[in-house]
């Protein structure tokens, strides 16, 4: 999985592409988020539009990332999850905690 970074105002958008599953990809996400926090970039938007599959490790990485950002007084939100990802976030109850958007403009302005 690749992560491309771009900024929109105070928000850092993480464009993920590839599966967010056990192994390198979940580590990659957690490490990237940790680095961003260290750089005081605390408003993060995870763009999942190019992420076809997420497994329980991927969910774990998202939870860990969310918690670290929150502890740094920041916010982490989700953009454009695939149908399957949304279903997973819904079943696991994470939709009630992770703010999720289908439109980038409104996602960025929500921070």
């Amino acid at each position, binding site marked *: 999985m690749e992560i491309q970074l771009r900024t929109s105002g105070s928000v850092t958008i993480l464009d993920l592409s590839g599966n967010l599953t056990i192994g390198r990809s979940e580590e990659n996400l957690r490490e990237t988020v940790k680095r961003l926090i260290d750089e005081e970039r605390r408003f993060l938007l995870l763009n999942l539009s190019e992420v076809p599959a997420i497994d329980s*490790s991927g969910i774990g990485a998202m939870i860990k990332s969310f918690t670290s950002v929150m502890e740094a007084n920041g916010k982490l939100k989700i953009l454009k999850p695939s149908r399957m990802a949304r279903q997973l976030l819904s079943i696991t109850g994470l939709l009630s905690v992770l703010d999720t958007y289908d439109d980038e403009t409104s996602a960025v302005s929500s921070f």
Partner: protein
Amino acid sequence: MMQKTARLKIVNRFGVTRSLPLGNPVFTIGRKAENDLQLLSDSVSRQHAEIVYEDDAYYLVDIGSKRGTFINGQQIVRCALQHLDLIRIGGDEDQQITFLDDTIERASAIFESSPRLTLTQQADRVTSANEELQKLARFIEVNQAFKFSLTPDDVLCLIVDAAIEITQAERGFLMLRNAAGDLEFKVARDDNRKWLEGADFAMSRSVVEEAFKQSRSVIINDSREVALSFARESVRSLDLRSIACIPLRRFQMSENMDATTILKRDAVGVLYVDSHIIGGTITETSIKLLESLAFEATKSLESVRLMHEEREKKQIEQELGVARQVQVALSPTAFKVPDYFEIAAHNIPSRYVGGDFYDFISLRDNRSAFALGDVSGKGVAAGLLAAMAQGALQAQFTSNMPLAEVVSSLNKVLVQRSDSNRFITLFCATLDPDGHFTYINAGHNLPVLARANGETETLTTKSVLLGAFDFVEYKPRQTRLTPGDVVVMYTDGVTEAVDADSQMFGDERLEKLVRESLSLSAEEIKQRILDEVLNFTAGLPQGDDITLIALKMKQAPPAP
């Protein structure tokens, strides 16, 4: 009458010939090191065959081997051996074994000896290129043997035998460092592949110390001219002529098992061979071979150790799996089903220890509690966490804690031990005799509630899975079950069961099935769904546990 002498001529596929005299009343053949003839092929049983001497003849006897024993291609159980008979042990084609009757052999004067038998005659021989090649062949043979599934002790024994053979020494030892840091004898063998008796052996301690402490090879070829001051004393007092002592260094296997890296220069033990009779015969090639042998030895020991560790780990997983099966199977039977509902459950554990668990608990006032959970990940850790969660739920429900508190406190415990990515999805509910059904669904697959009239709904509270956040609240929802209503709870192993085309069983299929099964009992509903799932997967191994619970409210008893 004197025993007629005979021997076995053994030629390996590198053309190296050995000759073993059949001196014992019983000569044993097998894969174990204790045998008089050890054959390292996995088609040879550990104790495969024997050659016994009776009534002036040698008999080859199969002692219950798996792959059989053959003379000149004919399978035998017990048969007298004739001069020049070809023996085959199991499917081992690597060694050509010929039975030679010494009396006939001498007469026909076609005696072929192994290098070792003519050792004394060759005491001052010049090492020929041919002999070095034979040593190399022997070394390669040992390397081949490492591939077979041997115990660490087998490997050590093999190394010492090979070292003796390469250097043509009289005896060899292998010592490994114990927990206290001292060297301990692991193998002591002579040049007839026999174990030397005793717990301690006269040997040059100073040479061993030097090799071990300095982690370098020490070679002494003629002790009468020992230049190494540290060794002079003991070597002379023992009257040893040739000594080779090679340190064994530790390795770390990398993931692909091919690349090895030396971890430390510290020696973990030594390989030692010595001899009284040979002077100056430990050649440069022998030393190089010994050092490679030591290298291969430690590498093999490491991989054998890893193999055994892996086996032990599997064993633990299996035991834990059994323990969990017992736990899953037993706890609900301790549950006394009240008269107002029926319940049936089934769990099919996957190949691995999975993390599914379920429980039914009797509460005060004839109320009941149900829990069905799934720990993320597999393996021992998931199994343990499942057992822990089940225990915690039971304790809290039994102490009459309300449902929301039970789930919240379990969540807090799990978050606190957030050392890894472990989460639990849990469906947890209580049922009153009047049909009040209170539930929390913490990230779990949505149970299907089918009303007696055929309408279905799914049970969700949109609560977050357990172990993620300590700040979330778990709020229960309520519904009322009336007689004939059915609730089917399951883990994702049911809906994500796959068929040969990787199609999933799916929520819709399950829901339809529940709707069509309303007239059945809880037991029948559970069985029907299970049959459909198993029929769907057609025996394909599934990656996840499959757990299913069917609950049915009973028809009110007819008024008296």
